[in-house]
């Protein structure tokens, strides 16, 4: 057992209202630069739909992620190391910018400089690639709210096997939103695909990053990521991706997308996992077992053995306390209502989703009538759509798991409804989904009340370690144990902090006294 900590995210799709605030704030912070005009580290897709880049989920085409070879060993779907080197001059699986969209801007100056005329001046779109006038044919969210769905949504890869049952006629349509960021996978195929070794997973918090000084622009990470969440900056010629806002995470703040989420759908917290068993879990033969395989890699922060090993593996004690209170662990492991996105890609993703109950309930609720709670349970079982669709998205096609989760969510609603209207505790409905009433109430608190401090349980990085390190080179070489002692006054450590964010000011400055010898 080798214990590592991972900052994970859960998104409650039932509460996503598709407002795109997360996308906009993320873009303003991270990709508001030349070369990344088309890049959205966070984007919100309407499902069913093609997504961004179009049909990103079709990994028969893009060949992202992992697969098992004939002998059951895990390998990159796009080919191993030697094959990659042979394809290095031209990557056959790379999306082109038209699979995303051609970024554009408007010549706003026209509005100010246009001469007085009878008609209002018009700003025309200009391509940010060529500078020329262009016709906008596609955007980052072109099929928002099922726009164009009758023509295009049929090509959604998640409809495999159920195309015949899906109708995009107005009365029968269903939809929900899927906000997406980098999954910060336990078994990241982008890292594995990078020939330069520029991509890495941080030991402390599992955040997957690109070293901009080591990236040489070979582009295999872009195609190797099955979620298409690594992007190529066409100005710098280097790969960029969601950083999980690590400068914020390190000081205990949630990511920008989470912080600004008006629906309060996002949860951030620690998950402890056994790094030695990642490969074994990712190599699980049956795709439908991948969910349980990944759950089995997670470690219980209450288990004394786990805690002891975690300490030996260098995980700070306060992090273990944060792991205990983690909403991510609670939703994924304790309540079993969060599910990974496309586990069949075998990357063991760490951004999980609570599937939406609303499409089911909406389908029951006709013109303004509220669905009878008693009808919801049978409806979940009866309804082929969207359960099968959700299964293709979240459980590699296992509808039973989706049904179990939706049952729990429906039971929580029924239980709380009785609790609040009749002041009755219905332990029967709790037992029907294998939970105790207090558990249901805890889950309700987490999902429905969703207090800020319950949603974001993020430990601060131990920067005092870095300060101690920065004191090592070029300072006093005599100040070691048994050595002759101090060389004199050390410079104030604040001077070594090169990031002068407002939020860093609140950090206690750990001086040489406090940090120990």
């Amino acid at each position: 057992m080798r214990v590592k900590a991972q900052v994970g995210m859960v998104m409650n799709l039932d509460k996503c209202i598709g407002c795109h605030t997360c996308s906009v704030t993320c873009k303003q912070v991270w990709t508001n630069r030349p070369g990344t005009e088309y890049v959205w580290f966070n984007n919100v897709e309407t499902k069913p739909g093609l997504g961004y880049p179009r049909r990103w989920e079709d990994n028969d085409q893009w060949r992202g992620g992992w697969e098992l070879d004939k002998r059951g060993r895990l390998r990159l779907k796009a080919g191993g190391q030697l094959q990659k080197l042979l394809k290095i001059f031209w990557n056959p699986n790379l999306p082109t910018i038209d699979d995303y969209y051609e970024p554009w801007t408007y010549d706003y100056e026209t509005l100010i400089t246009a001469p007085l005329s009878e008609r209002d001046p018009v700003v025309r779109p200009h391509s940010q690639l060529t500078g020329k006038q262009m016709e906008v044919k596609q955007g980052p969210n072109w099929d928002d709210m099922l726009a164009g769905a009758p023509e295009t949504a049929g090509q959604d890869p998640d409809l495999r096997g159920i195309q015949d049952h899906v109708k995009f006629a107005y009365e029968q349509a269903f939809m929900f939103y899927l906000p997406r960021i980098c999954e910060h996978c336990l078994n990241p195929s982008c890292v594995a695909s990078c020939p330069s070794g520029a991509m890495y997973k941080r030991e402390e918090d599992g955040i997957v990053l690109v070293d901009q000084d080591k990236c040489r622009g070979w582009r295999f990470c872009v195609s190797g990521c099955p979620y298409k969440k690594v992007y190529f900056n066409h100005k710098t010629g280097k790969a960029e991706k969601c950083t999980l806002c690590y400068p914020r995470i390190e000081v205990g703040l949630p990511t920008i997308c989470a912080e600004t989420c008006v629906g309060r759908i996002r949860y951030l917290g620690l998950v402890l996992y056994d790094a030695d068993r990642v490969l074994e879990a990712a190599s699980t033969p049956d795709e439908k077992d991948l969910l349980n395989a990944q759950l089995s890699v997670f470690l219980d922060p209450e288990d004394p053995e786990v805690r002891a090993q975690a300490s030996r593996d260098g995980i700070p004690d306060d992090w273990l306390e944060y792991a205990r209170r983690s909403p991510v662990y609670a939703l994924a492991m304790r309540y079993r209502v969060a599910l990974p996105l496309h586990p069949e890609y075998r990357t063991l993703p760490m951004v999980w989703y609570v599937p939406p109950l609303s499409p089911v309930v909406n389908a029951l609720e006709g013109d303004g009538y509220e669905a009878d709670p008693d009808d919801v349970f049978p409806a979940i079982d009866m309804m082929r759509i969207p359960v099968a669709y959700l299964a293709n998205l979240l459980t590699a096609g296992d509808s039973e798991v989706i049904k179990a989760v939706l049952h729990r969510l429906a039971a929580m609603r029924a239980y709380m409804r009785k609790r609040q209207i009749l002041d009755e505790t219905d332990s029967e409905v709790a037992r029907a989904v294998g939970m105790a009433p207090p558990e249901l109430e805890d889950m309700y608190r987490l999902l429905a009340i969703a207090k800020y401090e319950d949603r974001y349980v993020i430990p601060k990085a131990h920067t005092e370690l870095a300060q101690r390190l920065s004191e090592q080179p070029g300072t006093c070489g005599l100040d070691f144990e048994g050595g002759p002692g101090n060389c004199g006054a050390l410079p104030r450590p604040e001077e070594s902090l090169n990031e002068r964010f407002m939020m860093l000011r609140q950090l206690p400055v750990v001086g040489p006294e406090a940090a120990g010898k």
Partner: protein
Amino acid sequence: MRLASTFLWVVLPYSAMVLFVAGHIWRYRYDKFGWTSRSTQLLEGRWLAWGSNLFHYGALAAIGGHVLGMLIPTQLTQAVGVSEPDYHLISAVAGSAAGIACVVGFVILVARRAYFPRVRRTTTPIDVATYVLLALLIGLGLAETLAVNAFGGGYNYRDSVAIWFRGLFILDPRPQLMATAPIIYQVHAAAAWLLYALWPFSRLVHVWSIPLQYIGRPYILYRRRYPALRR
């Protein structure tokens, strides 16, 4: 004449070598962020498939041929049993194939760059200089192989150009060997040294980043935010 010859075949090569080495050190120390192939595959993929593969594999084969022809002395190839006519045949056939692939690929790449406004906009002045020198270099190289050696009278560059080239590295420059070579070889060699001088300042630096270390590497890499503390 003498002065020009010394300049072209002694001063130019050594200046280029100095720029090549110093330039790479400077670039690596101060511009790691700019060290990339600056691929435009994101902007255009179909033409690149042909252009890039033909050009790169052709260029790699041509470089291999130059190692054989320039660095390895005639006596050595003869010692292992390759006679002069044999060598001539091998170099003419393989060299033609590599040269044609390289030139065709290069033409596709340049045409693509000119034709697609998206790609054209990414072209920098130093790219243009690189392409001009490359065009000269590989165009003349193919001409030497085809017009002189495969279908022409032939010219034994291994007795002149190659000895001059090796001489530069053992500090025994012999410019007179180059001064008597056909003009086509002279321009080819001079263009090559100019390209080496430009190399560290262009996108050609990506050549040194061929990620051979990827072979056999563990797939998943971890890094600590801070290296472990020294105790």
